[in-house]
């Protein structure tokens, strides 16, 4: 099983400098925050989907389709109950749903999934190491960047070990499918303790391997993948910045794309 999200293609997005991708992703996050009207957000979502298609990362979207769908549905179903609109559709006691709150829920659903989608496109096109390098070039100290990327790297390892541990305990008769929440919590211990011990052991070995391979957080080091900002990187960043300013003008200057004016 492929445990990383990175997809080894050679698309223009892959070839961009990691810093460009990181800043662009942040700008896109910002763009999502500009509006709370579903139509406007849908346009942004469509744009991000285009990027996903262009960078060949749709297979990752397919892998995570349930999570994406779940996020969308949750927002769509829950948000309407927490905001008050004017055009009431339905009310029961303290609960009510209005046209505005429904639209807001839809917008929030789109916003949340688009957030995840942006992250997904970023991770599908950027190597762990490239991201680390990008962060370092942006002034993050090497030990911090390295710790971050190592933490990311270890997640799939622990997920794999967790699966084995569950199998081992199920083989001993542990029944994970029944019981109320308290019983289920009790069943958590036989899974958590071995995983915890495994994690300690694993990180210890990793630390030994790192030191044995000359890792010294304080020392000067070189990078084999040396990211360099090219003309197209600046072009991409420039375009995104212009886009962002434009969107902010639409929202603040022209008050467009808004269901609830006071809200993000």
């Amino acid at each position: 099983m492929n445990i990383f999200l990175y997809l080894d293609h050679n698309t223009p997005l892959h070839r961009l400098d990691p810093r460009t991708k990181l800043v662009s992703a942040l700008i896109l996050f910002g763009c999502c925050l500009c509006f709370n009207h579903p139509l406007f957000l849908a346009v942004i979502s469509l744009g991000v989907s285009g990027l996903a298609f262009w960078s060949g990362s749709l297979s990752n979207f397919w892998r995570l389709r349930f999570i994406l769908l779940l996020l969308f549905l949750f927002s769509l179903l829950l948000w309407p109950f927490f905001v008050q609109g004017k055009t009431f559709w339905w009310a029961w006691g303290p609960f009510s749903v209005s046209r505005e709150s429904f639209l807001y829920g839809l917008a929030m659903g789109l916003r949340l999934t688009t957030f995840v989608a942006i992250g997904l496109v970023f991770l599908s096109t950027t190597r762990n190491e490239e991201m680390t390098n990008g962060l370092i070039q942006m002034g993050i100290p090497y030990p911090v960047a390295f710790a971050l990327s190592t933490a990311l790297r270890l997640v799939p390892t622990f997920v794999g070990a967790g699966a084995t541990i569950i199998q081992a305990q199920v083989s001993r008769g542990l029944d994970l499918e029944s019981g109320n929440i308290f019983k289920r919590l009790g069943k958590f211990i036989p899974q958590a303790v071995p995983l915890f011990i495994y994690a300690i052991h694993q990180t210890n070995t990793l630390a030994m391997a790192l030191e044995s391979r000359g890792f010294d957080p304080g020392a000067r080091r070189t990078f084999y993948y040396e990211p360099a900002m090219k003309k197209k990187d600046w072009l991409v960043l420039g375009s995104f910045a212009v886009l962002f300013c434009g969107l902010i003008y639409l929202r603040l200057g022209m008050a467009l794309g808004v269901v609830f004016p006071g809200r993000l």
Partner: protein
Amino acid sequence: MGPAISIEQLTFSYSGKESPALKNVQAEVTDRSFVCALGHGGAGKSSLCYALNGLIPRFFRGTYQGRVVLKGKEAAQQTVARLSKEVGLILQDFEAQLFSTNVELELTFGPENHGLSRPEIERRLTHYLNVIGLEAFRHRQPATLSGGQKQRLAIGSVLTMEPDILVMDEVTTDLDPRGAEEVLALAQALRQTGRTLLMVVPEPEMALEADQVWLMREGEIVAQGPPLDILTDLKRLKSCGIKPPSFLELFQALNWPGQPLTVEQALALIRDHRLDLQESTPSSLSMAQIQENSPPILQAEAVTFHYPQIQEKALQGIDLTIREGEFVALLGQNGSGKTTLAKHFNGLLKPGTGRLLVQGKPTSAYSHQALAQKVGYVFQNPDHQIFARTVEEEVGFGLKVLGRDTTTIKKRVTEVLEVVGLEGSEKRLPFTLTKGERQRVAVASVLAAQPQVIILDEPTTGLDYEHQVSIMNLLKDLNQKGHTILIITHSMWVATEYARRTVLMKDGTIILDGPTRRVFAQETKLAQAALSPPPLVRLSNALGLEALTLDQMVAELSSIIPQRNQENKKI
């Protein structure tokens, strides 16, 4: 030339431990020589390796006395990172050593840390990709490589730092036979390049090519010298918990002259001394050992299975019947489908097509709990299941979730602990036990539910010889008490010594199935699955004998040539 490594009166105790891990170690390694270290589990082999690259005392704290001098520099005065230019250390656990997202970056990590220029990194990358034979995998994720390739990559990632001294700590232990071969071949090739090489090896046969062999016991080097001197002292080898070379044991038991270490040497000696043996292929090997009469307990009928996102089917139509009371070894390379098949038998995996029956009933008709009482499954790594504060609680866990009352649990726990030889350890903390003992706790915890069938995934991996023998004897006992045993193993001698039936898998199919003796007579078929019989069985095959074990061979040979034996005794 001065020594590459000189260890002077080194004593080290890990902090918090009373007995020292290394005791007055005194040794020297000449430049460009090849040293192999052997010893029982806990003999201090790994600690010695750590002391050579500075992990002891820099990473592992404790009391350190004596000196380790590497090419004139004292190890304890350098940081591990600085020492990595002189000494490269490769560990047993290749999974935990690899952390990059592709092969290229794994190899460049060391040179990057040393602050080398890009052209220099590029040069080393190209060169060492070639040395470790992974050019074609340059952009692959390490996780997608085979075990042997991963360990070669781990070695490569140290080589790119171009250290003069290489220290390898049991680098073949976690690998299947093919992977181990690949890694040993790489080590051989590296020797030719003028590096000093120190390898901790699990079996004496791997130390034959060494210039020096160190024998370790309880933190001390008890003997050092050329392989012939060290490996021929069977008594001393045994006292260090090492499986003696089979042919030496055989020749000594038969009182034959000579000290052969390889099949070829043994055959040549037998020929030279005209020990009156006809070399032939085994013909009428016994079939009687298979149990045709007892009822089937595990049945696979045309079982196929494939993992999501992998095109190739992991099982391609398996038909297999295992009867009550059998002792079966399941052999094959990693990825041949052994574990996948075994996990079907206790319902962890459900067949894609075909049927899987346990006592005539499909596994899907059982709940996990009901199946756990019929088919016990012991995972390879006991640490994947141990969680409790006491051995007693750990072993009784299965019974507790099955809802048994405390008196039954208590009684049963006492019983099974006695069976696995851990009586009196009820109150001990499982994590403080040795690996061999933890393995026993894992077996006991599965046994407690009294399953008829016990499946064990690699029961001997990572254990030293003594512990391997003791766990296998335990299984033999259980088998004699009526349990059906199925082991998945890479260890050929474990299969020939203990299993009466052997099933050989390759690419998701069964390519050989029959009495162990029969299966191991088919060397070409075994070679197709990149396996070969253990040395003793190869000799047995070459001489046309029935024997699978040392005792059988001694008995068979002495009955064939009693006179010759007598004559030799007189000399």
